């Protein structure tokens, strides 16, 4: 055990600095255990024999379709709204920029359930904006698929804005000046120079936002409810079936896990290709 660890550490660590101290090795192994042990249960208790049956049940396919659709729409909404905001934060020196950046990160640290309550009190039927909207148009957003998208966008947007802002900051702003000196307006500079140069960062920001939207639970169930085919996304399906059909719930969990790992793998590739020029 210790031999393999030493050998794998060799390329990055010269022998001269000595062995890896136990005081570091033991907690590090503990951290891995905390991260991976719970997944063991998931694999052991999974009903492998009738996996196919569970996966093809109407409830699961409906939830999967709803999840993929809403997460993708939310990601697109994040791109359309978030990239311009990230550009403003990265390129325009306006008053209150620091405050705006701090506000953007609020949903990041807010418990999603609280986010759901916030959405409800604002856009709900009796909400601050929802009530006049309902009186004027007779339409309310709560307990619809739109509400799912709103909730997912709310929690995923900060991830995208921060990732894209970082990518924009790391591209040389002098390319913008070159473009301007060659006659390109600020809009065309944004489209033809800034966006392509920040491309990899935007892609990884979008993937992060998509993954966050896919796993969204708290804000969705509070704001959009738990209606099959309307707002019961995969995480809500997992939660719902757990009460009545634990094996089914485990199958959906594994499916979510597979999708998440796939996203993570794609993202890692992005990160690695982003590091080497």
């Amino acid at each position, binding site marked *: 055990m210790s031999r393999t660890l030493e050998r794998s550490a060799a390329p990055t660590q010269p022998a001269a600095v000595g062995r890896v101290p136990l005081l570091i090795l033991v907690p590090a192994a503990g951290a891995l255990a905390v991260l991976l042990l719970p997944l063991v249960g998931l694999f052991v208790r999974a009903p492998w024999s009738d996996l196919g049956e569970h996966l093809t049940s109407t409830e699961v396919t409906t939830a999967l379709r709803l999840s993929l659709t809403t997460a993708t729409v939310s990601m697109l909404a994040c791109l359309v709204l978030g990239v311009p905001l990230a550009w403003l934060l990265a390129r325009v020196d306006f008053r209150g920029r620091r405050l705006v950046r701090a506000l953007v990160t609020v949903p990041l640290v807010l418990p999603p359930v609280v986010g759901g309550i916030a959405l409800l009190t604002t856009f709900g039927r009796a909400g601050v904006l929802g009530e006049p909207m309902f009186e004027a148009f007779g339409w309310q957003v709560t307990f619809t698929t739109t509400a799912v998208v709103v909730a997912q966008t709310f929690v995923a947007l900060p991830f995208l804005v921060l990732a894209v802002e970082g990518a924009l900051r790391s591209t*040389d702003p*002098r*390319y913008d*000046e*070159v*473009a*301007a*000196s*060659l*006659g*390109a*307006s*600020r809009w*065309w*500079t944004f489209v*033809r*120079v800034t966006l*392509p*140069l920040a*491309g990899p960062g935007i892609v990884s920001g979008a993937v992060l936002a998509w993954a966050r939207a896919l796993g969204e639970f708290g804000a969705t169930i509070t704001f959009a409810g738990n209606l099959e085919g309307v707002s019961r996304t995969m995480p809500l399906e997992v939660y719902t079936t757990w009460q009545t059909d634990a094996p089914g719930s485990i199958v959906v969990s594994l499916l979510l896990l597979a999708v998440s790992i796939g996203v993570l793998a794609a993202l890692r590739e992005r990160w690695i290709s982003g590091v080497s020029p």
Partner: protein
Amino acid sequence: MTPEAPEAPESETAGLDADIRARRGSFEVRAAPRVRPGQVLALLGPNGAGKSTLLRALGGLTPLSAGYVRLDGRTLDDASTGVRVAAAERRLGTVFQDGLLFPHLSVLDNVAFGPRHAGRSRRAARAVAAEWLARTELTEFTDRRPAALSGGQRQRVAVTRALASDPDLLLLDEPMSALDASAAVTVRRFLGRHLASVAAPTVLVTHQAIDALALADHVLVIEHGEVVQEGSPTDVARRPRSSHVAALMGLNLLRGRGDGEAVRLGADSTLVPPGRADGDVFASFRPSAVTLHTERPHGSARNVWPGRVDGIAPHGDVVRLHLTGPVPLLADVTPAALADLEVGEGDPVWASVKATEIDVYPA
């Protein structure tokens, strides 16, 4: 075409007419560059003198604190009225120090960038770009990405990109300084060949005397944000007015006060000029005009000063000695002569210069 303000008769206003004050960190840069169409003005000076700030002000990237910029009679900047035309609307061609070709575009699309934003279709812009690449003999690189080019090739593409936007004003910001010596020679020759056919005024920023001598029609020497000398390249090269330019040109420069027969340099040093010298004067001479001796030489009409060897370094096929003392000097001697002298760093020497080798001019 963009609508323009009514123009004064072109014969008087053609070209660049500017009077600029702009902030650069802790100091203000002031200069009044004027360049006629087809002419090249070099802004020459040490790093940090404010040359690039002037160029950025001309390009609309740095605001003026006072003054104006007019191009062919059109006001681009006027601090008194608040007029400020955006960089994108100035019809410029700019070449930056490290080229800054767009890394995500091919050479062709880099060169087509300017024509495209002048309103041409993608096809027409590419046709213009291909034409320019043929003219600058870079056709072989058409489909390459900038990362696949050498520094010198990139810089030649960057110049072609600037020319292809058919600029009313061409701005070159230290275009050779990021290159190694041989690439710098290639790019300098390339610029010399292609600037000749540019109808627009050109402003070249450089800290290398050779660039100014090879490419410019007129030179502004800038130090600490101020113009310290202005003139033709040969004038500046032969009669420098600052120690920086003298060092760039490889000349000794002394300043003193003439009383007809002699020039008083300091408390107890004098210089014998070739003719009469009155008032504040500069005196310049080549380091190779300095002769070194280990003992005070005898002779009447010679300039003789004591000094101490402060540094010895090879310089081409001679050896350059830095002398300190009442009259600090550079002296070039052959390696054989240095061996005969048997002096090393820290040794005292006598330096002599014939009066006929010295150029004396009013300060």
